[in-house]
């Protein structure tokens, strides 16, 4: 295989791995705080920002306020 082709394949692989990692973080809620920050910057710039700590508490309180688990 010539160099450029190999590099292309390498890039593709790296992109695929990165996409899988993003999907995993998204699905587990690992990136929730980053998404909150992004949303705040985009839609409500200048509003006070919750710290990671406060945001986590808030998320849990909301999540467990209703029926989130089943039989």
């Amino acid at each position, binding site marked *: 295989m010539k160099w450029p082709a190999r590099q292309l394949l390498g890039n593709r692989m790296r992109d695929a791995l990165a996409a899988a990692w993003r999907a995993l*973080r*998204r699905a587990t809620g*690992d990136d929730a705080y980053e998404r909150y920050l992004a949303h705040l910057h985009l*839609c409500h710039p200048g509003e006070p920002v919750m710290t990671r700590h406060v*945001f986590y*508490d808030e998320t849990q309180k*909301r999540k*467990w306020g*209703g029926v989130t688990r*089943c039989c």
Partner: protein
Amino acid sequence: MMKHIWGLVLAIVGAIALGGVALHRHEPINALWILTAAVCIYLLGYRFYAAWIAARVLCVDPSRATPAERRDNGRDFVPTHRWIVFGHHFAAIAGPGPLVGPTLAAQFGYLPGTLWILVGAVCGGCVQDMTILLLSTRRDGRSLGQMARDELGPLGGLAALIGTLLIMIILIAVLGLVVVNAMKHSPWATSTVFATIPVAILVGLYLRQWRPGRVLEASLLGVALVLGAVLGGGWVDHQPMLRDLFDIAPVPLAGFVIVYGWLAAILPIWLLLAPRDYLSTFLKLGTIALLAIALLIMHPQIKMPAVTQFVDGSGPLFGGKVFPFVFITVACGAVSGFHALVSSGTTPKLIRSEADVRLVGYGSMALESFVAIMAMIAATLLDPGVYFAINAGAGIVGATPDLAVHTISGWGFPVTVAQMQQLAIDMGERTLFARTGGAPSLAVGMASIFGSSFGRGLLSVWYHFAIMFEAVFILTTLDAGTRVGRFMLQDLIGQLWKPFGRTSWYPSVLIASALIVAGWGYFLYIGVIDPNGGVNILWPLFGIANQMLAAIALCVATGIIVKTARPRYACVTLLPLAWLAVITTVAAWQKITSADVHIGFFAAANDLAAKLAAGTLAPAKAAVASQLIFNQRLDGWLTLFFTAVVWLVIADMARMSIRHLRGLPVARSSEVPYQLSRLAPP
């Protein structure tokens, strides 16, 4: 064109697989036939029935903005990719129910339960979940109770609230009983399950204090630790002193579970509940995937007959004929009213486009039903004699191993004491006789599947892994259920006395939690002291309650479809509703009026009372008889109450529908008006 070819291929493969099931009568059948038939049926249902309902009945409109888009706040309302919503929704609805129900229903043979799991899911459960999900999405994610109040009237709303509260209490009690029966006199299982509590607390501290919100790291740490706890339990089992310490009788274990439940409900969420849920979700999804792979590798023979003699109502796990009790027992794997609560509330706030409700609503339930099929296979690949020896209570088959094997072999399912002893040694337990509740027999089945696919030497580790896996998410349901029950009770009492309704007022928190825990703790305690195992009474009660909640959800759906779509399309929800109304009413009728002491609550109570008065009971049973008598009568009245509530809601729905069809005014639809979506189509 390609789509049609796919449909055709699926139909042909499914038909061949079902034909395989049908033709292999009176000889062992391979589980692959059932698995293949099931997958084809789900895919066909998804491809054709669900698509038709989405297009014609629900008029799904991808151009219509969903609440996630309109009210996007980066927190609970977030437009989310449909596969991620699917994962969240599936993790929310999949619980211990579809594992336990089919295991118990296997006493009728593999066929009745399997057929109902397939038909019930494709035509009932999946339709209910998808419909409620869409209706709630069009109403800003309103809950089932609110929709019932808005669309039917205050009666419907109140019935949904009380029904939910009661089913929650029964559900937690029966699940607690399943855990207690899996842990009683088993040092390995008990120490492993106990160890998950400090692990959860550690993960909780990690997630809140040390590295806030790093869910992946914390969960990986926690999963590694609980796997270590499974191995550590094996070590404990070999230490004479520790072994005695964790060798606990059922009643004190029930006490532990009750105190634990109360603490979990009043402690901060982040300390125990939330981290335990992360652990259990990872374990749950991982184990289900592993089970599917292992089943494909092992492709076991089903040893249970297609239909056993117990269809006549004389079953040892629970009394009652195959109609209606197979439908009541399978419960969550086919139709679960509880799902309607998840489908209205959290999930609708994540739906990006209305077009996603088919995958999220119908698809998740189809997968849940597939889990039930796997549980059915795990139960029926055991020798039937072994299955009955594990699952039948001592009060039914006899208290000693010799008596039990004699009774069970007498039914035509040969089993020996030596065989059961060898099995217990393989699984690292002292005995497996009369471990009612379904969890131990499922764990034996899963251990055999995992063992033969990934190495037989580790059978006892696989067994305790399976027990731990079931216990972890049963305890999660217990924590979450107690907390939700507490909120509902605070809401209910708060309508009479305002301060009690403030969900963070500490006296109210303590009292409401204690009341809920006392409710399920009572049923749990009675189940534990019942010599017949307790599950035989509690599970049918839970099944009836759960199916009735589904009937309430389908009433709400039918009422709304009559109002907003073509009335004849309401058949899509009306037919499952009619079927559920019939089976639950017949089952309730039999539980209340039957003269057979294995079925009728009042008959059993009167029989026991007569024996107690005549002094013919064994001393051990006489000591608890008066409590058992009271409990049977209470269960009878409770069943009557459930039935009355459901028929009230049905009457309310019928009244509203008839008024609408005759052109009389009814409550206006609470649907949020159409807004054009600005999001790019998926």
